[in-house]
């Protein structure tokens, strides 16, 4: 029972972290139609900014400044790079962000080296929140989850309950009309891209201390973030939340399940045959835990190509 509770909690928190990173990606895609390959690079930038500033500003302030800096870099990328290639179509934008992700990763390697840097959770937050059945639950994980939830609530309210949200949403569907009404659509796009990058930066600054801050972190989370966005539906914030939680829970719970297809066939009396065949049939579910999200993505693409909460358009 304790184990199950731990697995559920672990899954939810990891899911919330995935949401923090994927929120920006899905937001930018929904608003601008740009599939941003460099999105996870902002996650990495956030972590390295916070690591660098931590000594000067302290942890809390470093996280906030790192978020703002990542957002600033995002805004610059939109203003001076993406906007120039925008009229060439999406393929060019995609290639540009793809190249950018390499440039960021290599620059980080040049400046900070190839190995993980020593970015740590501050001592004050480095305790356990509670313990259950002899195992402790880290306080910092709860904090990560809390930040993600607050972020979701804020974003949701901003988009649905404020004038800014109205302008942003209408700029997506009818940019010319919004422009004719006197709003600066280019500025809106820059803002959205910057906010998306800032959210990824925030996630990086927070998660980098808990996991690792290394030049590979963008690559490691980047793939999973794409899976989240595809499963949830491109452009859907609520979909990203749902998919993140689903994937977090799926990977966490699968680790605890040591059954294989052979066990299932055993119910039908064919265990000996299955064990003789080996291969896929005797592969334990637990050893596939981190592959399951991709299976889920495949399933979603087959059955509901627009994603769980995506629009059909």
């Amino acid at each position, binding site marked *: 029972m304790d184990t199950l509770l731990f697995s559920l909690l672990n899954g939810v928190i990891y899911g919330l972290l995935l949401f923090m990173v994927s929120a920006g990606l899905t937001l930018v895609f929904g608003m601008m139609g740009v599939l941003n390959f460099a999105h996870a690079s902002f996650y990495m930038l956030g972590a390295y900014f916070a690591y660098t500033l931590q000594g000067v500003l302290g942890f809390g302030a470093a996280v906030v400044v790192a978020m703002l800096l990542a957002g600033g870099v995002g805004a610059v990328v939109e203003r001076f790079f993406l906007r120039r290639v925008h009229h060439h179509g999406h393929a060019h934008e995609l290639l540009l962000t793809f190249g950018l992700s390499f440039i960021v990763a290599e620059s980080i390697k040049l400046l900070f080296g190839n190995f993980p840097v*020593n970015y740590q959770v501050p001592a004050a937050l480095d305790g356990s929140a509670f313990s259950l059945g*002899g195992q402790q639950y880290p306080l910092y994980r709860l904090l990560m989850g809390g930040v993600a939830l607050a972020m979701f609530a804020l974003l949701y309210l901003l988009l649905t309950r404020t004038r800014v949200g109205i302008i942003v949403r209408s700029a997506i569907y009818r940019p010319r009309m919004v422009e004719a009404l006197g709003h600066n659509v280019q500025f809106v796009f820059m803002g959205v891209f910057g906010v998306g990058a800032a959210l990824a930066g925030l996630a990086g600054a927070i998660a980098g201390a808990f996991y690792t801050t290394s030049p590979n972190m963008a690559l490691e989370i980047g793939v999973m973030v794409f899976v989240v966005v595809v499963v949830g539906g491109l452009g859907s914030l609520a979909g990203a939340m749902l998919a993140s939680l689903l994937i977090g829970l799926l990977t966490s719970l699968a*680790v605890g399940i040591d059954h294989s297809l052979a066990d299932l066939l055993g119910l039908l009396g064919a265990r000996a045959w299955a064990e003789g065949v080996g291969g896929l049939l005797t592969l334990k579910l637990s050893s596939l835990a981190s592959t399951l999200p991709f299976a889920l993505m495949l399933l979603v693409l087959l059955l509901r190509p627009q994603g769980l909460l995506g629009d059909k358009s």
Partner: protein
Amino acid sequence: MSSFRLAALPAALLIASAAHADAVKIGLLETLSGPQASTGQTFRAGVRFAIDKMNAAGGWNGQPVQLVEYDNQGGPAGASDKLKAAIADGVQIVVQGASSAIGGQITEDVRKHNLRNPGKEIVYINVGAEALELTGEKCNFHHFRVAPNAQVRTKVLVKGMKEANALGKKVYSINQNYSWGQDMEAAIVDNAAAGGYQVVEKTLHDTNKIQDFAPYIAKIGSSGAETVLTGNWSNDLLLMMKAAKGAGLKATFGTVFLDQPGNISNAGDTALGHFIVHAFNGEAGGADGERFVADFSAKLGRPPVFVEPQTAFGLDMVADALRRTKPEGGKLNVNAFARAMETARVKTPMGEASMRAADHQILMPLVVSTVTRDARYKVDGTDMGFKPVKVFSAEDAAMPVQASCKMQRPS
């Protein structure tokens, strides 16, 4: 930044000696870019150090030995491509270490090349691909492993931890799901009787793809294991240690790659009391150990870490074999070199190491160390380091030749 200047050094050597036609070329086929570049670059540092030493001692046949570096981009396909390029460039000795998957590809490619091109053989010096099959069913005359393997590492680790009274009765085995991790798991199970423990649970997981190890740590915690034995490397070890710290897991870790840079600093105090089996510990090697650390630091600006010492010792073995191979018409006869390699013997700071002709597996001394604050050499800029627990001689560490190895020698 000093690595840039050092990087220019072999290039300068290359240009300087390009005029001579028959210098021996050693090709390094390593992962020098991409996510696992950090591992490949440590192998490179060890190789550069050893080759500089070879050349300082006069090179071979009156000429400096040339080092040519190729980036295999982290995969078997890239390695296969770059091996062709190396052969075209006239490389006769290929060196690689990071990843058994890549090692498996290279040894097969080398075997096929040598079958098809008699008289133009090449030889593969394996400095770190530790999967058993390379000296088992895939063993061949032109492959030499100058690194330990899963069986040897686990045997020594278990013995060392048992003698230090750090080995619990309940052991959890967690490894990466590919040839190396599977070998480690098998070896951990095989050593249960010798170590007097019971393997309570075994886990194989995806390699360097997992971000969140908390579910695995929860599983280890609920299994009641007192000791965790693992062959994990890179992120899979680092993230596991961090997750163990977060969950307050009380188990002792027995590891193979805890000395990879970044691990100790990231794990912090959690690392204290954990164990590692490695090829070199400066503190255990007496005056020779100190001299090796000093030499290495003088050349590379930092003390040797991770796989660098074992790579340097392996290349010393190549130097020993080269010394005993006479040029034939000004050229290196690779088969003669390989035969010399079979009887190669070097003195490392940890003791005598020699090549076993039967399966081309090095027999080398290994050290079991534990992380403490009173170690002589601190690592990662922390106040912690590896304190030697026990040095095992090459004979103590050795495991018998695998029955699956059928070595075919050229007549």
